């Protein structure tokens, strides 16, 4: 069976979203650079966004009905906006951290440890 001839469904989109999400999580968990962590967050958000958009689409499911309707797209929009805001603040914090400690290594930001 040629996968390229079959129509794709919500599940395929979700699989892509899952891959992006896991990439983001690993990025967050493994990168020492604070900006790398930020990029991981962006990836995680995008992975989630793909799911929202896919579920709002009518023609990706077998019964022709969309799970979320237009609401999924609204949520995706808000996620994009909030991601932008989050990026701005996180970047500001990072720069501040850089100013104060002359590094962007998150392992060095452990002043609050027990």
């Amino acid at each position, binding site marked *: 069976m040629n*996968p*390229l*001839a*079959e*129509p*794709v*469904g919500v*599940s*395929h*989109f*979700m699989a*892509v*979203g*899952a*891959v992006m*999400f896991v*990439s983001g*999580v*690993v*990025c967050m*968990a*493994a990168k*020492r*650079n604070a*900006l790398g962590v*930020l*990029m991981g967050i*962006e*990836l995680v958000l995008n992975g989630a*966004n*793909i799911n929202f*958009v*896919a579920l709002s*689409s*009518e023609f*990706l*499911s*077998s019964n022709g009905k969309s799970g979320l309707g*237009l*609401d999924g*797209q*609204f949520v995706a*929009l*808000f996620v*994009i*906006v909030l*991601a*932008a*805001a989050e*990026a*701005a*603040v996180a970047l*500001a*914090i*990072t*720069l*501040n951290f*850089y*100013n104060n400690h002359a590094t962007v*290594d998150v392992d060095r930001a452990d002043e609050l440890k027990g």
Partner: protein
Amino acid sequence: MEPLNWHTFFFFLFALVSCAFAVMVVLSSNIVRMAFYLTISLGATAGLFFLAGADFVGAMQLLIYVGGTLVLLVFGVMLTAQGPFVSMKTRGGDWILAALLAGSLLALLVPAAFVVPEWRGPASSEVAPGLKPTSTPLGMGLLGVRVDKLNERPEALARGMSSYLLPFEIVSVHLLVVLVGAAYLARTKRRRDTRLESL
């Protein structure tokens, strides 16, 4: 040989690009390259949005994410990418741990995506009916009218009770606050040397 389903083809193309570059973001240790890979990955995601029929969201993805947020990130990269910080190596142990986690998480999520039968895709391959532009209903929804639910019951939904006017306002104020806060946090503080002044 069955005819090529172009919709499927482009889906796999964009999926491949976005997934591959997302993984490369993880694997790369050079911060500048990571930023570049992330740009491509997110741009490909916008393509996926188009393929899912969300033209407006895809456009916004390109405009805000690729055009705005990532520029901001690159800006941060440029400000901090000096000498030792350009590539910061993570220890091997961490990598192994992260890989283990990633594998288990993936093993959890991907099967979960295929659990619901309706989500596997339409039965016929005659897909991609005429795309309905979504920017108008989205815009109206943000202004308080759900044109996509005019025939829904109960009627309260149609009369704007399910619209997004208030979240829209909240998000705009939120953005403003965030911008002001970011500007405050990021501004360079001129440290005064109190020791010298006291002399």
